[in-house]
């Protein structure tokens, strides 16, 4: 019930916001997101972390009986961690947008909260159709957030974002439906008894995730390759992998601050989570064969994204491209297909959400004050905004992957995972007959991938320090209108009171030169988490270990190679045969 609550509470508060007067909107939104966070935390306490591989807190309501679609929720270790991240970023975003958003406040908060619900839905879904609905539903609020409250070129950005992601995910749906069809037409006799006992829904028309995962593994290598292609087409767009990333910089530069934070913090993680939940376990053989090609894309993305960041003049675009590079690391770890790699990539999802989300908050704060994101117009803000500068340097260091902060742990594990994952260890030049190679894992990546991706660490240092050097350090330089402290800005929709001749500390738009209490309140939790996850990441690592072990076991030794029969015989599909048993959540 807790997971259903985590989804329903934001929806209810969205309705309340719609009904409430404009002034109350923000407080209701804050309350809604905070309650979602509280529910998520309570669910975390109830969750039995030692069995993190099993989907717990399950529940299931019959939805479309005929098709075997159930509203079934459940969360394993990884989902629970990501739900917590969503819960945390919710209130942070609401707080961050209190002064930034001044027009149509009610609609803004309503859609923001609906977005929260949809994201929680994606992570908690144990039914493919429910997953897909939530996965798609996140697009609409994001589209509205960007197109109504974005900056100059927001229409185009919103449309491109929506269409690009939507086309991708439709292809992914095709892949998932094929697997469902394959499962429905599976001849139960041909499936070994041991597998059948665990999944009695096998062979019937159902959309239950665990059943489909098992069915997916029984597919022939060719089918698996095609399904992988379809899934990757959809999810690679969401994680911006190299060739399909062009929507991200545009969407980020045009999105409002809170929109960017949510987009970077959680929406990108939908893609990585989907690949972890569906691509890896469902088509393990195809993933194993195509892992090097996909990691090639990641490595290119890291270098490509990194170098492009270096030449940006727009701060937000710089951070957006850095997300492309960072998620390249995350996916490199994922495609290493070993424990260190996948644990590193899941940690990366959380850490990237925190550090990049914070960076976007900080950039938003400058944008509210100086209404520009152009690095040439801003400079040496440390003199005017010391507190902001400290946070900026802190989160830049977290993002660069400084040991002691959260970025390093995940980045190092991803690189280590990629480094290990090569079956050529122990043979030829890399072999040692005296003592077997201790920590090599089979796979097709290897030291070269890690080495080239490692240069990404250097490039990260280059572009982030370039940004910090330009914006934070150096002689003080602010856009023309602002140095005199008098803020005349035609800022989009910002209908503030007439800009009185603000004194040094009180600008016309009611924001002190340095950070206000509220702004610090949004940053402190993220900073604390960055340090805690950097210094003591053990609990998080142990939390996801169960789920990661299971996935690695599946990928390492898929069902078909365990003597499962050759491609099962087919019998005519009966689309209408009702799902025999009431799809229960936890299997």
């Amino acid at each position: 019930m807790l997971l259903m609550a985590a989804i329903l509470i934001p929806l209810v508060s969205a309705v309340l916001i719609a009904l409430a007067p404009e002034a109350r909107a923000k407080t209701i939104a804050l309350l809604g997101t905070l309650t979602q966070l509280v529910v998520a935390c309570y669910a975390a306490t109830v969750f039995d972390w030692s069995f993190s591989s099993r989907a717990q807190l399950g529940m299931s309501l019959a939805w479309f009986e005929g098709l075997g679609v159930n509203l079934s929720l459940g969360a394993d270790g990884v989902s629970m961690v990501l739900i917590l991240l969503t819960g945390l970023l919710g209130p942070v975003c609401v707080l961050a947008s209190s002064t930034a958003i001044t027009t149509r406040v009610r609609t803004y908060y309503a859609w923001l909260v609906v977005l929260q619900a949809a994201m929680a839905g994606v992570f908690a879904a144990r039914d493919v159709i429910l997953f897909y609905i939530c996965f798609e539903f996140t697009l609409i609020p994001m589209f509205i957030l960007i197109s109504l409250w974005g900056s100059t070129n927001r229409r185009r950005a919103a449309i491109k974002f929506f269409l690009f992601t939507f086309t991708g995910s439709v292809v992914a749906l095709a892949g998932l439906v094929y697997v469902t069809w394959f499962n429905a037409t599976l001849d139960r006799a041909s499936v070994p008894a041991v597998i059948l006992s665990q999944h009695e829904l096998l062979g019937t028309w159902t959309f239950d995730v665990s059943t489909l995962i098992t069915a997916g593994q029984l597919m022939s290598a060719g089918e698996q390759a095609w399904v992988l292609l379809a899934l990757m087409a959809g999810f690679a767009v969401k994680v911006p992998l190299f060739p399909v990333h062009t929507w991200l910089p545009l969407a980020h530069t045009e999105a409002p601050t809170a929109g960017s934070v949510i987009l970077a913090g959680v929406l990108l993680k939908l893609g990585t989570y989907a690949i972890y939940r569906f691509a890896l376990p469902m088509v393990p053989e195809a993933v194993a064969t195509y892992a090097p090609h996909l990691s090639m894309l990641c490595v290119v993305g890291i270098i490509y994204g990194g170098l492009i960041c270096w030449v940006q003049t727009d701060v937000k675009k710089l951070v957006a491209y850095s997300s492309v590079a960072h998620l390249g690391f995350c996916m490199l770890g994922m495609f290493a297909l070993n424990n260190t790699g996948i644990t590193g990539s899941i940690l990366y999802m959380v850490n990237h959400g925190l550090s990049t989300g914070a960076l976007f908050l900080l950039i938003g704060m400058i944008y509210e004050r100086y209404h520009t994101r152009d690095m040439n117009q801003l400079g040496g803000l440390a003199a005017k905004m010391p507190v902001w500068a400290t946070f900026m340097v802190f989160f830049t260091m977290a993002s660069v992957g400084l040991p002691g902060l959260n970025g390093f742990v995940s980045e190092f594990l991803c690189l280590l995972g990629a480094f290990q994952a090569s079956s050529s260890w122990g043979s030829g030049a890399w072999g040692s007959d005296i003592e077997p190679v201790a920590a090599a894992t089979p796979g097709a990546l290897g030291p070269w991938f890690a080495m080239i991706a490692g240069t990404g660490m250097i490039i990260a240092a280059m572009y982030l320090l370039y940004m910090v050097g330009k914006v934070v350090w150096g002689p003080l330089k602010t856009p023309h209108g602002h140095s005199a402290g008098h803020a005349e800005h035609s800022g989009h929709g910002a209908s503030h009171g007439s800009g009185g001749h603000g004194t040094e500390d009180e600008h016309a738009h009611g924001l002190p030169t340095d950070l206000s209490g509220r702004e610090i309140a949004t940053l402190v939790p993220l900073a604390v988490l960055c340090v805690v996850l950097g210094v003591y990441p053990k609990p998080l690592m142990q939390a996801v270990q169960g789920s990661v072990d299971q996935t690695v076991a599946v990928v390492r030794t898929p069902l078909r190679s365990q003597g499962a029969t050759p491609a099962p015989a087919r019998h005519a599909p009966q689309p209408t045969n009702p799902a025999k048993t009431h799809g229960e959540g936890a299997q």
Partner: protein
Amino acid sequence: MLNLIQDTIVHAEPQTLGAASQGAGHAHGQTDWSVAAIVALPLLACVLTGLCAALRVKSKLPAWLTVASLAGAFALTAKTFAAHFMGAESHAFVVHVFDWVTFSWAADVHAQGPQTNELVANFAFYLDSLSALWMLFVTGLATLIALYASEYMSHDQGPGYCRFFAAFSLFVFSMACLVMADNLLLLYLGWEGVGLCSYLLIGYFYKKPSAVAAAKKAFIINRIGDLFLAMGVMLIFVQFGTVEYSVLFEKAKPYIELARAGNFAQIPFVVKLIPCLLMGGAFGKSAQLPLYVWLPDAMEGPTPVSALIHAATMVTAGVFLIARTYPLFLLSEVALPAVAWVGALTALLSATIGMAQFDIKRIMAYSTVSQLGYMFCGLAVLSPSGGVFHVVTHAFFKALLFLCCGAVMHGFAGQLDLRKLSGVMKMPGWRVVGFGMLIGCLNLAGFPLTAGYFSKDMILAEAFVTPGTAVIGWILLLTAGLTAYYTFRVFFRVFVGPVAYEMGDEHHGADHGHDHEHGHGQGHGHAKDHGGGDGGHHQPHAPGWAINTVLATLAVLSLAATGLYFVGGDHGAVARLVDQSSAGFHSPLAHHESGAGQAPDHGAAAGAGRASGHAVVSYVPEFVRARAHQGEVHAGTFFGADPHKAMYFVSAGVGAVGIFVAFWLHLAGRKTAAASRADALLPALGPLPGWAQGKWYVDEFYDFLVRKPLWVLSHILYLIDSYLVDGLVDFVGAAPKAAGKVIRPSQSGELHGYALGMAGGAVILIVIVALVAT
């Protein structure tokens, strides 16, 4: 030369660390909190000074907080040192604080052979004689320099002051983590931590774009080194399944056996690659040849920073890394020679550049790079004790030199150009600084009976003793001469000679605080109206009590350091400490004069002592004794004489020549600050001085070779991204619309057009029917 080295490498049977860990076990109890405290105190100071910044403290409180905590840390280190490492034998121990990056996963049932299924990298400290020694001089110097900085930075009180001391104490914390780390991952944390602090401190005067650029340059070049280190750590983990020293050396035993037997061929390529990667990391951090360009620019930071970080502690991190993982370096026949050559070339190159500079801090920076080259050579020519001893002595006298330059800069409002200063020692109040500088220069130049002389001498001797590294010895000898020359060039130009000076333009060296920049600092004003006349009406103010006391203590310490060579066993206490640690490798050929026979038993004694199993891995030279008997192994000689004895006289002689040339060119017959006899010689040398002054254009070379092409590549990639990749997406969007536009004209409204279309269609249809039907 190289294969000869391999034959003589002696490996004692690897010392089971078990002893050490048990040792740690029982020692766990009482020294546990003190070791952790050593690290915790600087962190506490950092947090407190951070709070001071938040609370906008204007007083010198942060300085006192830092000095107090560092003094406490030094005291604790001294206590631990006395408790564990003073005796003949010392035993290492591990102190576990908490689990850091440690997690285990289900064992892979299909993996062939024993696969580790856990990554253990705890926040734990491994204390042995090497790290204790290192911590001693790190915390010691840090305390002194913090005291010095409290006055030096006094003109910048307020947020800047707090920020300085926060970064200062964070630096000491990171250095402590680096030195006392129990595993390579924690070392990596310290490694990058010190990189961050050097970034923050170099960029302290963030108003100056040059400082910001220098800070960025330092961090990025360090990052390049760090990448190699990271790769090394990963390769170690993959190969040995662990990153902890104790377990690592345990696992490396079979290879050490092989190396001891001398057949390197069997050692797999992977194990030989590890030292090369670690070496890359060391060169990045310790500013050696390929990646040294950041150190001279790091002089943008305040002088105490340069003294502590860029002279004494951080830059020695590379030496520490090689010393700590010395057994791994001995496994590869390529690693040590490479280190030797890089060290020697760096020493020579930076010495030549140092000779031609005019900014005294830059000269000191290049001299640091050069001396670091010495230390690496010391390690590489199989005398880690010599190298480490040079690290210790260098730390003291180089800190002293930097602080003297700092005092001059502080007094003369940022004036650092040796052509604008002369006879400073004779001015009132500058006597202590003058004598401090003299002592430092004597040490640096290797004047007989100074600590620098003995440490340099050990390295030179070993270079000639160890077969095959004679060439390195000769290069180092030449560099010793050059060092003596440029050291005393500074001394004779600035501190002695006719009294003449010209105030610098910065006020008090520390750029004034940021928040009241519109109010003109008193210093700022006077420099402008003061104009270029020398001996202007404003008097340079002599350094205060804090600076003088620190300089005095450092001077005394530098002189006292020679004692380390004599007291505490053969080759001094430092050699003993080093031999007892993992870096302990006592060259069997050191005492050639006592005849082949004797060396071994001494060795044996030491070995025996060592055998009691305290050092991680120690080397029992029995093996050498066996080889020596068969006569295969014969120590190198210096023109027939025993290198150790010979070096005493040769290095002294070279030093003296250097000093005399400097005297002759820069003091004798010099009337004014600006000109000296040396200027007359310049044209004779042709373009060389110009190039040297231009630092051999290495910076420009890097910029041209790496930075510019990368910049162009990035622009090209951005164009590709915004037009090609993005263009493709937009094209997919625009294609249907364009197709529609093409087809629309066919609806022209002309009846005849339609009729013709119908007729044409009919004809085609009939033709098809005709063709198909028949």
